[in-house]
């Protein structure tokens, strides 16, 4: 696979490159990165969030594993799970047993839900010689309790990675990595902000592919890619359509098929915010690049991380506030709840979030998908009639 060539600045070239990365279920870019120098290691991680800075500081490549999408036939994966759970663990197992992940030196399973936790157990049974870790995060957000716990969790993660590489992760290296990821998050936010202001220029399916590229590329390359995309999209002359502006919510783990993202847009909805691949912008402010980096990362998680169904909200009245704030800040006209079938966190969160929206008179609809959903007509009809309702009977 080609690596990113800096003089390839045309929008189509950038999007095509991201599409190639997205379609590649063999993770060739990550394999090539590993093969380029002896001693390199790749650490896979699943949604929703892991501190990629620590993996990077260990000289390793963090590799986002987001299931098999709609181009992977799950044959073996179904044997490991009951039928009434989501698809991402089955397709992830399928990726593994078909040797598509056989170059990965470790896997991290964040505390997204019970299914992902159980997947970490299956992984240990299947690959006892490969490093794997259930990466827990605090649900108590005080420094004394959650902070102490999380710093210890981060140190254990670092020690595990040091065991693979054989070298110590220094504070200096970690601060350098934090700096690189700060820059990456700034660019991610820039892309989202450009899409918010000119959604007809930065199309959602392109932005989606651009963010997906960040799952498989080194952070430095992904940042360059976003810089080039921002320049290219500003130069692009695309017609503005009379679409409504929506936020998509509930897709933080198992990803929708790309056609679903395209269908929402085609149905007359500009997506002005979403929760796809939250790892790219989980920390919502700059993490300091001096002092104790573990404590800085912990402080960022406790005090300015994003919100999603797998993060506890201590005060009941605060539940859904982030979504209402996002509607206001992004000038959205409605919310589309799009969650994977059987996704307990997203689907159990939905009534609370939709209640909060209803109290603010913010229009919303909901539907479910699987990563391999193929029939988009019902979703187009639903999203399209939602857009009509907003455009014809809404306030704006």
């Amino acid at each position, binding site marked *: 696979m080609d690596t990113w060539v800096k003089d390839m600045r045309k929008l189509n070239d950038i999007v095509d490159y991201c599409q190639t990365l997205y379609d590649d279920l063999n993770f060739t870019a990550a394999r090539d990165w590993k093969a380029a120098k002896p001693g390199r290691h790749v650490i896979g991680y699943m949604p929703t969030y892991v501190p990629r800075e620590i993996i990077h500081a260990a000289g390793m490549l963090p590799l986002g594993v987001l299931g098999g999408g709609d181009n992977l036939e799950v044959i073996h994966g179904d044997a490991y799970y009951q039928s009434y759970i989501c698809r991402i663990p089955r397709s992830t197992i399928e990726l593994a047993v078909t040797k598509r992940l056989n170059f990965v030196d470790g896997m991290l399973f964040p505390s997204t839900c019970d299914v992902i936790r159980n997947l970490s157990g299956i992984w240990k049974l299947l690959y006892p010689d490969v490093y794997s870790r259930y990466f827990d995060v605090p649900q108590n957000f005080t420094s004394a309790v959650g902070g102490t716990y999380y710093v210890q969790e981060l140190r254990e993660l670092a020690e595990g990675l040091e065991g693979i590489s054989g070298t110590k992760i220094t504070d200096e290296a970690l601060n350098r990595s934090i700096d690189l990821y700060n820059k990456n998050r700034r660019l991610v936010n820039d892309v989202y902000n450009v899409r918010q202001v000119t959604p007809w220029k930065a199309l959602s399916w392109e932005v989606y592919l651009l963010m997906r590229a960040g799952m498989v590329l080194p952070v430095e390359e992904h940042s360059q890619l976003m810089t080039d995309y921002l320049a290219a999209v500003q130069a692009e002359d695309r017609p503005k*359509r*009379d679409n409504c502006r929506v936020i998509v919510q509930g897709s933080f783990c198992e990803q929708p098929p790309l056609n679903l993202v395209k269908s929402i847009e085609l*149905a*007359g909805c500009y997506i002005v915010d979403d929760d796809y691949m939250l790892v790219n912008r989980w920390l919502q402010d700059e993490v300091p690049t001096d002092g104790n980096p573990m404590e800085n990362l912990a402080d960022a998680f406790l005090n300015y991380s994003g919100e999603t169904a797998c993060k506890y909200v201590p005060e009941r009245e605060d539940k859904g506030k982030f979504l209402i704030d996002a509607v206001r800040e992004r000038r959205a006209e409605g919310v589309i709840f799009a969650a994977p079938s059987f996704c307990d966190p997203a689907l159990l969160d939905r009534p609370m979030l939709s209640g909060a929206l209803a109290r603010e008179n913010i229009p919303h609809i909901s539907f479910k998908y699987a990563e391999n959903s193929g029939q988009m007509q019902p979703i*187009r009809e639903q999203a*399209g009639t939602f857009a*009509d309702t907003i*455009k014809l009977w809404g306030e704006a």
Partner: protein
Amino acid sequence: MTLAAGIDLGTGAVKAVIFDVTDGKINWVSRHIEKIRQRDPHKLAREALDLAIKDAGAEIGDVGYIATTGEAESLDFSTGHFYSMTTHARGGIYLEPEARAVLDIGALHGRAILVDERGKVLGYRMTSQCASGSGQFVENIARYLGITWEEIGPLSLQADDPEKVSSICAVLAETDVINMVSRQISTPNILKGIHMSMAARLVKLLRAVKVTDATVLLTGGMASDIGLVAALNEAMAGQKVDVNSKSHPDSIYAGAIGAAIWGAYRHDKLTRLDELALAS
């Protein structure tokens, strides 16, 4: 003056209309319809629009809003897209202001839409199985029987002993029709049987959206099939559905009409919002 174009890209035909909406007065200026017949529908849509604009004595730049509906979401020259339910509801109210339900019977499916006096969709049901209750199926059968589209309705009205066909599956229904031909069932009785099967399904839709004591306007390409309209009235009488069903000579344009009227509405609304934004 706001000139708005409406383009309804259906499965069987593309319809384009131009409306002038000024101070709340809605004036239908021009129209164009073209059967698709295995040609590039997007190209036909553009040609239909250009012809409608020419007939209106206008230029493309004079059109404030180009609204699409039907299968035209991805037309790159449109200003905005509205879904078929939305546009048929509004187009139905334009053609028949007393209507409180619209029965849209197109080439691929039928749907009953409950509407209010503004054309707002209050509820809907649509055929969910296959194409045996659709215009495309009727057109196929007509071709097998060697008759034209225009002959279907009048022939159906001549039936004296109709044979019902499968209302579930177009493949089974087509087999039924082949069997009928071999049993020398007359063409009027075959056509009437098809109309009766379709009507039974459509009345179920009307019952599902709870239409009672109202005027129902038939829209879509099948609205001009007088055989189907007669079968529908008979089915409604038989099932004690108390509605007054009507067709309109321009029913086939309902989707395009609704798109153009809503397009003009959006054009005015967006202009007002822009003015407000500038003023503030």
